């Protein structure tokens, strides 16, 4: 074995690799970084739009008109309580429909369904999730309302908050089901086995062990569902029954207006807005409130989901 008397001439530049490749590398890193920043840009753009324009509207309008006893933008009445109560009704009714059905479906799929049954039923729920909300709105107005809601609640109008709430409920069933099911199936099997080992029946294990263990995930599912129900537009515009404006109405069996429906009605008639010049501007105020509510709810839901992920 002979020792080499010449060390190979390797400089730092050789080890660093081809300069063109390194330049590409840096460039691509920037491209990806810029793409990721788009999320920040969009968020800032949304907030800036609604805040600035809502501010301009508030500067123009008399504050007392925000608490008028109805929502008639063309007459300068921007009664926020009217549309707020509408949204509240829709959300409450939708959760009453989607909460039990969605949660029960999730428990069945996660705890009871055999794999073969699951393979059929789960995609079917996903199909329901994929139905566009405009079609659900059409279906609610023309079928759910006359053939279901009006038969049970005979005083209900064809287009009513009640009918629209049920429609929104149908829309968010898959959402509640899929998030809850994720939470339930990520509960470790060891908990189920321990409970069964103690002699508990399946129903006891499910209700007293699995569901409590998945609770933060289930809570997240309900919060996301509430947020979705608040922001749902087409179903409430088509099946809510109110066109243009609405007087304050506390009875959900009557036609009513939600925040989103008020926006949709205002915008789709915006070309013909006469009279009060700032009527269209009120869109942005409602949008701002809507954004605040949903963004806040989503942040809270996010925390619940993360807490759940940390536990298991």
């Amino acid at each position, binding site marked *: 074995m002979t020792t080499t008397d010449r060390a190979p001439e390797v400089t730092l530049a050789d080890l660093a690799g081809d300069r063109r490749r390194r330049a590409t*590398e840096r460039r691509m890193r920037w491209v*990806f970084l810029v793409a990721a920043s788009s999320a920040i840009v969009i968020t800032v753009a949304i907030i800036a*739009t609604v805040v600035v324009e809502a501010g301009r509207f508030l500067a123009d309008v008399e504050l007392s008109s925000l608490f008028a006893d109805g929502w008639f933008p063309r007459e300068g009445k921007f009664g926020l309580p009217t549309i707020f109560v509408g949204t509240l009704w829709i959300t409450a009714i939708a959760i009453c429909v989607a909460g039990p059905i969605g949660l029960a479906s999730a428990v069945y799929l996660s705890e009871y369904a055999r794999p073969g049954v699951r393979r059929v039923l789960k995609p079917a729920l996903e199909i329901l999730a994929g139905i566009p909300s405009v079609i659900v709105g059409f279906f609610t107005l023309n079928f759910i309302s006359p053939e279901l809601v009006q038969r049970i609640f005979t005083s209900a109008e064809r287009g009513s908050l009640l009918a629209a709430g049920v429609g929104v409920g*149908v829309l968010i069933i898959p959402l509640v089901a899929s998030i809850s099911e994720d939470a339930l199936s990520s509960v470790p099997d060891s908990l189920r086995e321990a*409970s069964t080992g103690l002699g508990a029946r399946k129903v*006891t294990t499910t209700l007293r062990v699995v569901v409590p263990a998945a609770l933060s995930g289930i809570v997240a599912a309900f919060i996301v569902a509430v947020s979705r129900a608040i922001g749902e537009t087409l179903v409430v515009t088509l099946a809510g029954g109110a066109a243009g404006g609405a007087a304050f109405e506390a009875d959900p069996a009557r036609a009513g207006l939600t925040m989103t429906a008020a926006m949709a009605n205002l915008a*789709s008639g915006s070309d013909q807005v006469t009279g009060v010049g700032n009527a269209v501007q009120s869109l942005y105020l409602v949008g701002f409130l809507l954004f605040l509510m949903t963004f806040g709810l989503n942040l809270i839901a996010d925390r619940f989901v993360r807490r759940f992920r940390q536990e298991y």
Partner: protein
Amino acid sequence: MSTVLTPPDEAIDAEVARAVETGRTLDARGLAFQGALLLALLAALAVLVWLLYSVVDGAIPVFQDRSVGDFLSGKLSGSPSRFGVSQGIRGSIGILVFVGIIAFPLGVAAAVYLEEYATDNLFSRTVNVLVRNLAGVPAVVYGLLGLFVFKGLLGDLTGGSSLMSAGLTMAILVLPVVVITAAEAIRAVPQPLREAGYGLGATQWEVIRTQVLPYAAPGILTGTVLSFARALGEAAPLLIIGTATGLLTSSGGSVLDQLQGNYTALPMLVYVATKRPAEEWLSLASASALVLLVVLLVANSAAILARNHFEKRRS
């Protein structure tokens, strides 16, 4: 931090004692519970079946009275006998082109950054939180963004209530969905694949281009189709930005003219037809809804085929 799970000892003890005492092994309450759960799930699916049946059943008269081709080639019109969906199909395709050109590359690139480049710092955490929250922002609010930015500020470029404004808004709307699903797909790429690439001397971008993205392609594709489906069916932002509702004269002219021109889209046709009170519009709304559902079905099937193709190449 952990929730304290107290084992329901007493309840279980009581159950065991009762079972021993009575010698009964049949759990009637358990069966009832299971039945109730199944019933709830079946109720949800029954609504789905009812919906699909109603749409198809309602659409039949239109296709019987007029040929299918006549309805598909008909235009937006105030007269029920001439109303058709051709312009809606064109508009929806136009919107999808915007989504494909803007949201898809931008979303995948953002996902690559979040999964491959980002370290755990303030920037990446912020982007992560914002993306998840943007996915939950109601579609009408995106409509306001489109109304203010694309119809207002950039009105000269976009032409106001135009296909371009709608397409850009919809691209922004679905961007978070693309990012989230693409990031999930990229996260699922096995680490050894990357390490092998680095071991052979590839740079990070080369590993991403030749290893990570091809492996993640099926998952990314699924996410893209989800976002396309969302863009196809979403009507709320279009309602805010404004579309043609009464009559739409097909604008000829250059591509730019068409992009800046008035438009309509399939979900808007369902909306317009549902809003009209007369009975004959009910079947037209059903028929438009059916066309929209069929388009969604075709898009989804195409995606499944494409995904299988990619997955086969992967193995």
